[in-house]
């Protein structure tokens, strides 16, 4: 699997150049990346090098082509042949003394720039095919070249350049040339460079051939070289580890040249392993330098391995490798005086790896599944993050700085040797240093002793300022972790970052980061960490000269729950927080310091501005503690009223409880309790310190004194006093201000015991809970606010209502205001009408159209008391009437006076209504001092319908028109009453008193709604009412109208019944208004009528009465109203009470517009009301059968002839008086 991965190596690896190899993620950062410090040949993968000799004019073309191809090939272009011998024949300088060097510094560079794998000799075809002199020259050049390249095993290519297309070289010449050069045929290439004549393609083809030849030969060269060294490694034909490492390294580099990443990786790893073993065995160098050298080489090897792994996409393996690298070397600190070199080295390892990871994670998104460490000690999430390594790099760099400082102080005595250090330079071996000695013109290297080297290293180390790098690394880590929402580690980085800022004096940045960290630690209750952060914050504010912040942080520190019995005291600090070790003793020290400061005994020495700060009269200090302040630990004020509702003017108890977590007792000089009603504010003074009591001689303030105002750690100071609120409404305690020193006050927001939050950090402490108030009920439910009631009203408000209201009338409700003990000033009467059911006074649910736009119940107006003239109402009097709301001003009333008015309310619909009347007034004339008092009254009033209407239509007696619609009743049309056209019909309207009071009816009439002329005639049967009719509850009043419809219609509008009525109250008091006297007009809409013409009329004629035994005539008349002949069947049923003569049944034809009369003679056989024989008439044309009604065919039979007398009563009323 591994091999496959390696072969699919991203091709861009080869391409990467210096500039894009390391892209700094933050361009604003000016720090150079650590990788840039590596030489380029180490950072970028090896590129094969070929050399071009001769025919210089073609070099640029070929080299640019080779460089652009994939993989690129670098070219070393030499214009003539003498140069190559120069270059290659340079004698290899043998080591002056091989003192344990592992890798030569310039070996990589040499293969990159000086030792080509292939030398291509370019000859122009003229020279090759030219005269013997030229040929000879070619031959010597080749010979020379061979001599140079052969010992180094460098491959040779002969290129013959044709300058024009018709250049021809004989085959013999070419063979001869090949023989001279001792190369295969394929390595002698013809390159056609005749410029414009040939096509570009042809040129390209030649170059491609050349290129592939180069690549092939270069590969062969590097393979041979690699194999050569590999055999040495395998045979172990050396006696030192150094050589072993060097050979492995070389094999790996050659493999890289060949792009054989697997082998490269393997040999790098081998080299790395062997190197690790050398730590204990190699003895050639002094100890320190040996370690330095090994680490430097290991660094390079590690860098190569990591790069290869990362570019192969094997992120997890690279990280595992790095872990291993870290583990292997982190303990190799070396002697203490050069320990800083180790930490610097470590920091660089982390940094370089971070940068590598960052660049590779851009190209390869690490989709590698992060396995958690449950089953194995596998990689964790953070190890995939560059931020993690940045953070550790910063950590190690800090370590370096610390050890360097130590080393500098140790070496200060030996400063005089510093001059020697100047001549120290890197030697030819990687990781070695030597002194350059000038001996005449030549420079010689002299190896150093460890002591010299140490001095050199320290001197070098002094030159660098590490803080800015640490800041840069930490900033990267901080930002990265913040983006990942890993807030805790981010804040840790932020904290370290802040410490660095603090160190370099950038206080504002430091403070910002520290505040963020502190809020996290406060929230999660990490006291020890908070202590440390606060210590720094305190120092920041000290340096920046912010007295208030300094005091605040100090107080918070002092109040932190760091106690003697807890685990925290066991902490010892390596790098102690500026606040000192977290302990109870230290808290006490801090508190003392603060109180000395606030009492003006000491000064705060600030760095900025060089001014001393002091708390005094000019600079008083005022701290505010709100509900979320961390200083609640310092002072917590809990205020509870003992009663939730207070009567005005009565005193109530209030308990002020104070709690402080400061380790030492705190004496309060004066305590000020402030309410929203400022006249309730009071001051508590310490009775022991009399001076305070004297100074607080503010007039009008309530001053209390307490025996002691000392706050003891975590113990409530409970103070109970009485307050006497004067004003109604909410009384809330807002602040408790503690004055501790003459110029130091703490203003603490009051809190209710019921809703008091736990103290931020104390809530995690395991200690007994204490309550601010002894009374447990109050401790759980006490509030800092209480409701003050209004004073008792001394005024009566009387609503007099006389019973239910009737719909339509203007119902008057008398309201009386009677002053008892209070006078009324600026009185206001508010009137509200509310539906009892809670809804509005009109509801869209009820679908009467007229109810939509008006209220069902309406407040019409308020009439003032009797005799009050409207003009007397002054301009300040308010009178505002709306449909359900009214506002009336009440005049000034003195004791014992009364005032009344009437509310006029009209019901449009029967509905119960709640009437609310409230009177607001001032008991005295001075509105500013006195309080408005309210009296409320309410009354439920029913609205009832006064009159219920009903009506009835009747046809003329014993006359039945054949109304077809009645017979063939169509569904839907039978609701409408039908009346015959042009016939008299009778309409009886009755009005029933449905209320509980007697009514007086004034008139009743039928009126057409809109004044439209009625297509029918309406007549009163009798006269109009002369005097009002009394109607007791339940009684009915009837009135008869005659209707003669004039038009045939399916829907005839008859109009409405208008009834004018009023209440019939016994005591016709004069106070009733005109509106009431006029009476109420109630309208009732009559239903529409159907008017139709009829074909037949059946009318019965018989005497109004008969006498037993006396025969009488009974006529049945069938009148044909139509223009048609009507066939009518009739049949007469026998009746028991009568003997009759005439035909029982027959079919008759009635001529148009004529009448057929059936006549019978009847003799009554029984007396009383008797049923006449009933006739049934059937019209053949309409196939309708009809019969007169039973009442119509009933007649009264007197047993004997009666005697009547008629009297003229004068009012056309007939009175029937029986003579018997």
């Amino acid at each position, binding site marked *: 699997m*591994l091999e496959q991965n390696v072969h699919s190596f991203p091709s861009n690896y080869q391409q990467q150049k210096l500039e894009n190899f390391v892209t700094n993620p933050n361009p604003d950062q000016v720090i150079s990346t650590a990788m840039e410090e590596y030489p380029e040949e180490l950072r970028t993968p090896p590129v094969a090098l070929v050399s071009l000799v001769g025919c210089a004019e073609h070099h640029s073309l070929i080299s640019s082509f080779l460089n652009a191809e994939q993989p690129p090939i670098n070219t070393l272009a030499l214009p003539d042949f003498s140069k190559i011998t120069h270059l290659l024949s340079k004698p290899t300088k043998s080591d002056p003394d091989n003192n344990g060097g592992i890798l030569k510094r310039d070996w990589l560079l040499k293969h990159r720039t000086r030792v080509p794998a292939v030398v291509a000799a370019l000859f122009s075809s003229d020279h090759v095919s030219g005269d013997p002199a030229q040929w000879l020259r070619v031959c010597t050049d080749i010979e020379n070249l061979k001599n140079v390249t052969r010992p180094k095993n460098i491959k040779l290519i002969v290129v013959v350049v044709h300058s024009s297309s018709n250049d021809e070289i004989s085959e013999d010449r070419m063979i001869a040339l090949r023989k001279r050069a001792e190369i295969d045929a394929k390595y002698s290439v013809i390159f056609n460079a005749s410029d414009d004549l040939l096509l570009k393609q042809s040129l390209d083809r030649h170059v491609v051939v050349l290129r592939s030849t180069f690549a092939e030969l270069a590969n062969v060269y590097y393979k041979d070289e690699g194999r050569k060294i590999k055999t040495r490694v395998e045979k172990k034909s050396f006696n030192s580890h150094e050589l072993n490492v060097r050979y492995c390294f070389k094999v790996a580099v050659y493999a890289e040249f060949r792009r054989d990443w697997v082998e490269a990786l*393997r040999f790098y*790893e*081998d080299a790395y*392993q*062997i190197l*690790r*073993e050398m730590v*204990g065995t190699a003895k050639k160098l002094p100890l320190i330098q040996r370690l330095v050298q090994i680490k430097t080489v290991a660094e390079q090897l590690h860098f190569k391995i990591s790069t290869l792994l990362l570019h192969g996409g094997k992120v997890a*393996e690279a990280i*595992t*490798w790095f*872990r*291993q690298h870290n*583990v*292997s070397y*982190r303990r190799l600190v070396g002697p203490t005086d050069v320990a800083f070199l180790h930490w610097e080295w470590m920091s660089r390892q982390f940094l370089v790896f971070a940068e590598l990871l960052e660049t590779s994670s851009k190209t390869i998104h690490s989709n590698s*599944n*992060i*396995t*958690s*460490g*449950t*089953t*194995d*000690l*596998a990689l*964790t*999430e*953070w*190890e995939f993050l560059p931020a*993690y390594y940045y953070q*550790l790099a910063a*950590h*190690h760099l800090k370590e370096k700085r610390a050890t360097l400082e130590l080393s500098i102080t140790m070496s200060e005595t030996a400063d005089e040797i510093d001059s020697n250090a100047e001549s120290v330079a890197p030697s030819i071996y990687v990781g070695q240093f030597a002194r350059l000695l000038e001996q005449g013109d030549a420079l010689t290297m002299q190896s150093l002793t460890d002591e010299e080297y140490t001095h050199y290293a320290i001197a070098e180390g002094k030159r660098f300022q590490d803080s800015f790098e640490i800041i840069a690394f930490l900033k990267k880590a901080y930002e990265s972790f913040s983006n990942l929402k*890993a*807030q*805790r*580690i981010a804040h*840790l980085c932020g904290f370290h970052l802040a410490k660095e800022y603090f160190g370099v004096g950038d206080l504002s940045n430091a403070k910002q980061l520290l505040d963020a960290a502190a809020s996290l630690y406060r929230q*999660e*209750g*990490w006291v*020890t*960490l908070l202590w*440390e952060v606060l210590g720094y914050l305190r120092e920041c504010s000290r340096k920046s000269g912010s007295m208030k912040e300094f005091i605040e942080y100090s107080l918070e520190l002092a109040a932190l729950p760091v106690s003697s*019995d*807890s*685990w925290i005291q*066991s*902490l*010892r*600090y*390596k790098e102690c*927080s500026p606040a000192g070790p977290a302990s109870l003793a230290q808290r006490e020290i801090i508190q003392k310091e603060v109180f000395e400061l606030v009492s003006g005994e000491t000064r705060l020495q600030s760095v900025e501005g060089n001014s001393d700060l002091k708390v005094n009269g000019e600079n008083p200090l005022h701290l505010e503690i709100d509900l979320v302040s961390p200083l609640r630990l310092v002072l917590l004020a809990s205020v509870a009223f003992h009663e939730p509702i207070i009567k005005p003017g009565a005193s109530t108890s209030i308990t002020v409880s104070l709690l402080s977590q400061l380790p030492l007792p705190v004496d309060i000089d004066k305590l000020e309790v402030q309410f929203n009603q400022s006249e309730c504010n009071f001051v508590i003074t310490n009775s022991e310190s009399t001076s305070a009591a004297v100074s607080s001689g503010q007039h009008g303030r309530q001053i209390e004194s307490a025996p002691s105002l000392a706050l003891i750690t975590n113990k409530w100071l409970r103070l109970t006093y009485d307050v006497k609120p004067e004003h109604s409404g909410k009384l809330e305690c807002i602040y408790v201000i503690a004055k501790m020193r003459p110029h130091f006050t703490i203003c603490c927001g009051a809190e209710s015991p019921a809703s008091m939050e736990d103290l931020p950090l104390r*809530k*995690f*402490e*395991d*200690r007994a809970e204490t309550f601010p108030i002894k009374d447990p009920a109050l401790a759980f439910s006490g509030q800092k606010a209480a409701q003050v009631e209004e004073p008792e009203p001394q005024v009566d408000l009387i609503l007099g209502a006389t019973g239910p209201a009737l719909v339509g009338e203007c119902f008057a409700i008398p309201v009386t205001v009677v002053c008892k003990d209070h006078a009324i000033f600026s009185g206001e009467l508010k009137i509200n009408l509310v539906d009892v059911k809670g809804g509005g006074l009109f509801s869209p649910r009820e679908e009467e159209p007229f109810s939509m736009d008006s209220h069902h119940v309406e407040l019409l107006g308020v009439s003032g008391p009797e005799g009050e003239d409207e003009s007397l109402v002054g301009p300040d009097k308010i009178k505002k009437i709306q449909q359900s709301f009214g506002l009336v001003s009440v005049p000034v009333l003195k004791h014992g006076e009364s005032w009344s008015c009437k509310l006029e309310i009209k019901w449009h619909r029967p509905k119960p209504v709640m009437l609310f009347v409230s009177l607001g007034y001032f008991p005295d004339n001075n509105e500013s001092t006195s309080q408005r008092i309210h009296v409320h009254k309410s009354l439920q009033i029913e609205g009832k319908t006064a009159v219920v209407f009903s009506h009835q239509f009747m046809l003329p007696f014993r006359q039945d028109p054949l109304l077809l619609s009645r017979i063939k009743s169509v569904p839907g049309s039978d609701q409408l009453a039908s009346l015959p056209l042009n016939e008299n019909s009778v309409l009886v309207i009755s009005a029933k008193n449905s209320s509980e009071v007697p009514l007086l009816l004034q008139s009743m009439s039928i009126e057409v709604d809109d004044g439209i002329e009625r297509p029918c005639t309406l007549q009163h049967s009798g006269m109009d009412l002369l005097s009002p009719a009394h109607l007791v509850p339940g009684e009915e009043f009837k009135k008869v109208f005659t209707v003669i419809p004039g038009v045939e219609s399916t829907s005839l509008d008859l109009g409405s019944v208008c009834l004018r009525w009023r209440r019939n109250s016994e005591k016709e008091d004069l106070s009733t208004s005109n509106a009431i006297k006029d009476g109420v007009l109630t309208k009732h809409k009559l239903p529409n009528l159907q008017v139709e013409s009829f074909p037949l009329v059946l009318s019965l004629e018989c005497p109004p009465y008969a006498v037993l035994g006396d025969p009488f005539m009974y006529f049945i008349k069938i009148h044909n109203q139509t223009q048609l002949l009507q066939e009518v069947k009739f049949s007469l049923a026998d009746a028991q009470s009568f003997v009759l003569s005439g035909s029982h049944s027959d079919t008759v034809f009635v001529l148009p517009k004529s009448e057929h009369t059936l006549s019978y003679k009847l003799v009554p056989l029984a007396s009383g009301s008797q049923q006449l024989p009933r006739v049934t008439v059937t019209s053949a044309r309409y196939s309708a059968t009809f019969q007169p009604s039973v009442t119509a065919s009933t007649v009264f039979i007197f047993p004997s002839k009666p005697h009547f007398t008629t009297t003229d009563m004068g009012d056309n009323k007939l009175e029937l008086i029986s003579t018997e």
Partner: protein
Amino acid sequence: MIVCVAVVGHQNNPLYIQSFTEADDALKLHHIVHCSLDVVDERVNNPKKSGLTLNETFLGLLYPTENYKVYGYLTNTKVKFILVTTDLDVRDADVRNLRYGIAKITFLSMSGVAMVVGSCGTLEVSQLIYLRESFWRSYNLFSSAHVITGVIAHCISQILEFFRRFHAAYVDAVSNPFHVPGKRITSRTFAERVSNIVKSFGLSSAG
């Protein structure tokens, strides 16, 4: 060696934190424990990504710091146990096993690895992992890779065992009727018991 143990409540507040080092880096350990909560959060919130099964209490290695390794354990009441150790040293007996395993295959060209094993009296687990990786990868030496796997598994089981005993001690401590849940554990008995567990860490596995 265990350098620090901590119990962290579900509001991420410390309930108990005790360090066992002679060095003066208790504060640093507090920072380490606090930061490890980020990883705990991450693992608990993305159980799939971290490969954590639902009711698994042992969260595994949270993260390695400079000198320490941090392990986590989550109870089902969301109380977290954090264990900070120095790099775990493999005990001699295990190394002997390892050597034995390797001795069988010494003829192979793995001088480097063998020398590492040979030169160190004790090995760190991370080194072992690396060795195992290289056995698997480059040399296909399965048998010795298995030996190392066994050694690592042994280390993990020690940690698991520790957490189990620690959990039991915690449960006993909070079962105290006078203990208020969510408050810091101040019981001396608990402290003693924890320090016993810490002391016996590693020893119990030998016996």
